Every structure is written in structure tokens, then in C-alpha cells.
């Protein structure tokens, strides 16, 4: 199973970081390999996932949406019902337990939409870890509610003013902190990006989404779905859903990237469609970049997708044709946001709203015996204020 020993998914992945961090990545990899074989670790993680985070999450048949679109049956994997409101907690619980095993007392993280930051601040509070969250100033403005939540949870939120003042720059700053405090600090990376072992480790912690989906759909439908659809920024909720179905070739994977103002506008975050292969933030993958290799600024209405890179496993899925990657614009995502709210009484986060919009185009083209599963990766409370501003301005 991929990645290989050096952390490669085909030609993508690897470990491209300053020498100082090698020690921490090796330590993390060793600890994770030990934990994986340790029944106690698995039991402890399962306990917290169930009793604290609220797993398993339902696979909900979206009857109204299905009837409205008059096509394939649509199921929603309800990660929005988890504690803290998004799938991010699956990963942060796992990494927090690893942090404790490594004897580290301080945990740092980057955050875009703030969902990962909240999930890290939450587990830091739970396990008594010192917590610093790096967040771009632009995102701090867009996601004021999550900033307040992190502070309530006892985390220090450090504003990042450099560059685009979004997720990319928050990762830069978190890496600089990690290089400095590497002996005492664990960097809890929030997506399937970065140097090995992060893309593997985060995927494994998020794979609970796909594993549950598999058993739930078998129970409800007696067969596997035809399509799995999820939004892709760095790509953690989508890999979490896709990965356990990798060998089930009949199940199609569609990753929906943020099309921003449209792919021809240059203001988007559609890394897999418009990016080029490069080496950045620790791994070889696709990145939005200038011809000479300077990293470009991404754009998306949803802070969680506003990142110019993507996880190496997605790059691999694209290369071998296992998954298809499409994009949905800001405006279309808002349509998805409104539609799910009205039809099902579920306000989605803007990130999965991209996937929902895509399904409004796909489902009507499919016959009624087809099955689609959408990963509803988070709830929309954090976005309500901004959406109301946008809608009133439009």
C-alpha cells in the first residue's frame, strides 16, 4: 500500500524540508508506526472518536434534494455533525494522542477557515497541551467566529501578515515555529499535505470517513455507491472518503476544487486542473505557480479551500486516472450553500457547498438507480455571517 518507505505515491510526496525537521519527522513516523500496532492506542482513539467527537456519523439519504434534482440517489456523509463542526477533529484527536506518546507538551497548527485551528485548540484543551495557532490575517477577518472559539478554548492565535495572509502563509509561519521549537513541539498539520509522514498519517486518521461510509451504504443499499464526491483544498476529507474505496474500481471518485472567480480569471484554487508539478511545503505535488516556480496566491470564497497546493496522494490519483477533478466557482458554491439549506434544512460549510453544487449538475444526468455519496465535511455556522454580507451586496 502507498506511500512507499520514502513517502512517495508514485512520483509524488517525499520529504523536502530543512534538515532540522528530519529528526521530528522520523520521530513522528516511528511513533505512528508503533501506535498503529498498539491495540491500546487504537482503543483510546476509538473511545475519543465515539464518546467525545460523536462517531460514527450518519450516512443520511437526502430525499428532498434527490427528488428536487430528479436523478441519482444522494447520500450525505454527515461529518458536519461531529464535535467542533467538521471532519478535522478525526485527525487532531489522532495527532494529539501521538503528541502525548512522544512526550511533547506544546502543539502548533496552521488554519485557513479556522476549522482545523478549532479542532486543534479543542484537543489541546482536552489533553492539557499548550497551543498556538497560526492564521493569515485575511482569514482572521473572514472567520472571526472561529478565532473567538480558539481563544475561548485557551489557544493563542497568531496573525500572519506575510504574503497572501492566508493558509499558505500560515503554514510557512508554523513551519518556522516548528524549526525553532522542534524538540518540545508537535506540528499538527491539518491536511494530507506536507512532508512524509503527514500525507499518510492524516489520511489514515481521516479514512474513518470512508470506512464508515462503506459499511453504512452496504447496510442501507446493499451495494457500494457509484460516485464519491468531496471538495478538495489540501484534500483531507476527500482522501478520507476515497481511500478505503481505492480498490473498488466501480466506485468513481470526483474531487471538487475551488474555481473562485472562474478558471480563466486566475483567481481560483484549482490546483489539480491549473497547477503544475513542483516541490513545496515538504512534498512534490501540484501547485499553482508562476513559470519560474514562485508560488501563486490562491483564491476562494471558502477559506478552507484557499490553498495553492494539494496533497500528493491526490496528485497520484489524478495521474493514474483513479479520480477526476473538477471545479466549482464561488458563485456556484453559494448556490449549493443555499440549496442544501432550503431543501434539507442543513446549512453546509462553504467548502462542501462546492461539492453540493457539482452534484446538482451531475445527479440529474444519472438514472435513479445510481447512488452518489457527498462528504458533508463541515457545517456552515462559521460562514453564515460572510454569506449574508455577500448576498446582501450582490
Amino acid at each position: 500500500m502507498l506511500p512507499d518507505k520514502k513517502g512517495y505515491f508514485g512520483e509524488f510526496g517525499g520529504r523536502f524540508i530543512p534538515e532540522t525537521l528530519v529528526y521530528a519527522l522520523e520521530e513522528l513516523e516511528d511513533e505512528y508506526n508503533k501506535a498503529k500496532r498498539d491495540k491500546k492506542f487504537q482503543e483510546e482513539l476509538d473511545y475519543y472518536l465515539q464518546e467525545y467527537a460523536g462517531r460514527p456519523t450518519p450516512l443520511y439519504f437526502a430525499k428532498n434534494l434527490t427528488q428536487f434534482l430528479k436523478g441519482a440517489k444522494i447520500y450525505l456523509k454527515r461529518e458536519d455533525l461531529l464535535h467542533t463542526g467538521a471532519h478535522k477533529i478525526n485527525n487532531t484527536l489522532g495527532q494529539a494522542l501521538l503528541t502525548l506518546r512522544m512526550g511533547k507538551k506544546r502543539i502548533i497548527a496552521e488554519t485557513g477557515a479556522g476549522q482545523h485551528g478549532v479542532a486543534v485548540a479543542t484537543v489541546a484543551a482536552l489533553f492539557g497541551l499548550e497551543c498556538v495557532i497560526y492564521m493569515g490575517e485575511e482569514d482572521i477577518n473572514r472567520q472571526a467566529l472561529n478565532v473567538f472559539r480558539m481563544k475561548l478554548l485557551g489557544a493563542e492565535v497568531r496573525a500572519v501578515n506575510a504574503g497572501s495572509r492566508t493558509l499558505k502563509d500560515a503554514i510557512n509561519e508554523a513551519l518556522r515555529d516548528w524549526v525553532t521549537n522542534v524538540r518540545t513541539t508537535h506540528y499538527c498539520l491539518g491536511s494530507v499535505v506536507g512532508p512524509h509522514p503527514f500525507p499518510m498519517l492524516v489520511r489514515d486518521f481521516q479514512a474513518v470517513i470512508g470506512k464508515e461510509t462503506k459499511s453504512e451504504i452496504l447496510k442501507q443499499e446493499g451495494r457500494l455507491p457509484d460516485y464519491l464526491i468531496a471538495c478538495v483544498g489540501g484534500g483531507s476529507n476527500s482522501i478520507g472518503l476515497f481511500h478505503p474505496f481505492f480498490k473498488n474500481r466501480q466506485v468513481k471518485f470526483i474531487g471538487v476544487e475551488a474555481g473562485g472567480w472562474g478558471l480563466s480569471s486566475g483567481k481560483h484554487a484549482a490546483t489539480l486542473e491549473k497547477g503544475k508539478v513542483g516541490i513545496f511545503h515538504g512534498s512534490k505535488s501540484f501547485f499553482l505557480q508562476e513559470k519560474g516556480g514562485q508560488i501563486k496566491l490562491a483564491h476562494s470564497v471558502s477559506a478552507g479551500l484557499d490553498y495553492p497546493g494539494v496533497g500528493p496522494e491526490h496528485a497520484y490519483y489524478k495521474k493514474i486516472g483513479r479520480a477526476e477533478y473538477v471545479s466549482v466557482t464561488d458563485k456556484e458554491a453559494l448556490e449549493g450553500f443555499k440549496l442544501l439549506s432550503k431543501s434539507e434544512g442543513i446549512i453546509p460549510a462553504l467548502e462542501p457547498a462546492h461539492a453540493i453544487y457539482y452534484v446538482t449538475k451531475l445527479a440529474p444526468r444519472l438514472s435513479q438507480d445510481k447512488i452518489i455519496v457527498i462528504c458533508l465535511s463541515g457545517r456552515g455556522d462559521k460562514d453564515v455571517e460572510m454569506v449574508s454580507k455577500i448576498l446582501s451586496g450582490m
Partner: protein
Amino acid sequence: MNRIEQKFRELKTKNKKAFIAYIMAGDPNLKTTYELVLELERRGVDIMELGVPFSDPIADGPTIQKAGLRALRNKVDLKDILNLVKQLRKRTELPLVLMSYLNLIYCYGIERLIKEARDKGVDGMIVPDLIPEEAEDLLKIAKANEFSTIFLASPTSTPERIKKIAEASTGFIYYVSLTGVTGTRDKLPAGLREAVLKIKEITPKPVCVGFGISQRKQVEEILKFSDGIVVGSAIVEIIERNINKPDLVKKVGIFVNRLSG
């Protein structure tokens, strides 16, 4: 033998240590960089590191980040810097090393870059986000072109890793004095001497110490046990403070002269 190896041989016979200076190419513009290199050679610099500006320099502190942004505003890229070196080579035989993040090199094409760089007179490179394990292709090409590859060792490198780093490094080994990013510090980290001596037990290659150095007394202290020192941010700060002043080059020269002794 390229200019770097020659320089260390020469220094050894004179019983001297290497003073290595870093500046960001294109900060505040390429013409000033050209003049600075020649001035710093006159002021006692033995090897010059030219930084290549990158949008996301994760191993650098605020001083060099800002310098990179100034150079990027001038749209300075690798090609410009290679041409700068070509011009410099008409005037100097000072060893010149590029310090570039990997994506810029990867996008240029590793083989194309090393060949062109060597042809234009660059002697080697330092890539802060590349470790020997990921450098197989690059090392092959560099070796075939007698192009130095200088890897970084750090306080968290195990003896096994130091061995790997020493094997992959040609020219010298760059020891990062502290766990952290580039930038000046008031105090030298504890255990620096022991760490450098440990590396020197493992390898006969020259070991130069960088990160955090800004004062003459730090330089003197480190040169007691290392083969050289690298000063970057402290010089870049002088450049930053004197931007748009007619005597920028002279001021930087005086500062470096004071540091190098």
C-alpha cells in the same frame, strides 16, 4: 577542483578561516548586488553566497524574507542571477554559491540549471529545503559537472545523518548553529563548540557555521573551532537600513570589514 575547494586549500596553507557572506541577489537591485560582491571581496570575504528570492522562504526569518520581497518586486529570477554571475566573472575569481529553495531549481530544470550555472561561473549551491536522501538526481548531475553541493547539518542531526550529509557535501558542510530560522541573535547557542567538533570527528571536510551570527566577538569565538562562518541577516540588515542611500555599498563594506577582522 573548483574555486570553493581551492579557496579552502589556500586558506589552510595560510592557516586562515573562511569568512562567508550572504546577500540576497537583486536587493535592492542587481546593479547594487554586483557592486556589493566586488566590495565585499575587497573587505575580506572569502566565499559569497547569493540568495535567490522565493515567495515562501520557510527557513528564513523576517530580515531575509523582506530582502526576498524587495528582490521579487524587481522581478529578479534565477536567469538574471546567472547573468549577474557571468558579469562578475569578468572581474573576480571569488567563489560564488547560490542559495535557492528547491522549487525554483526544479522548475528551471535541475540539469539545465547546474550546467548553465557552472558555465556562467557559479561554483555550487545550497538548497535549504533539500536533504541528501532526496537529492539523488541532483548529486549525480552536480558531480558530473564539478559543481559543489553544500548540505546543511543542524543541532538535531544524528551522527548517522551527519555522515550522510558529509558524504553528499562538496566544498564544505554548513552547520546551522541553532534550531530556528535565519536571523541575528545576541547569544551563541550552548553546545555549539561540542557540536562542531563532533562533526569534525566524523568528516575531514570543512565545517562552516551559520545562522544567528552578527558580532565580531561571536565570529572570533566560532572560528576557534570551525573552518569558517557564514553571516547573512546581519549584512542584509545593513543593506535594508541604507537603501536609497548613495553610500550603501561602502557602509556594507565597512560593516563586513569590522566583522571579518
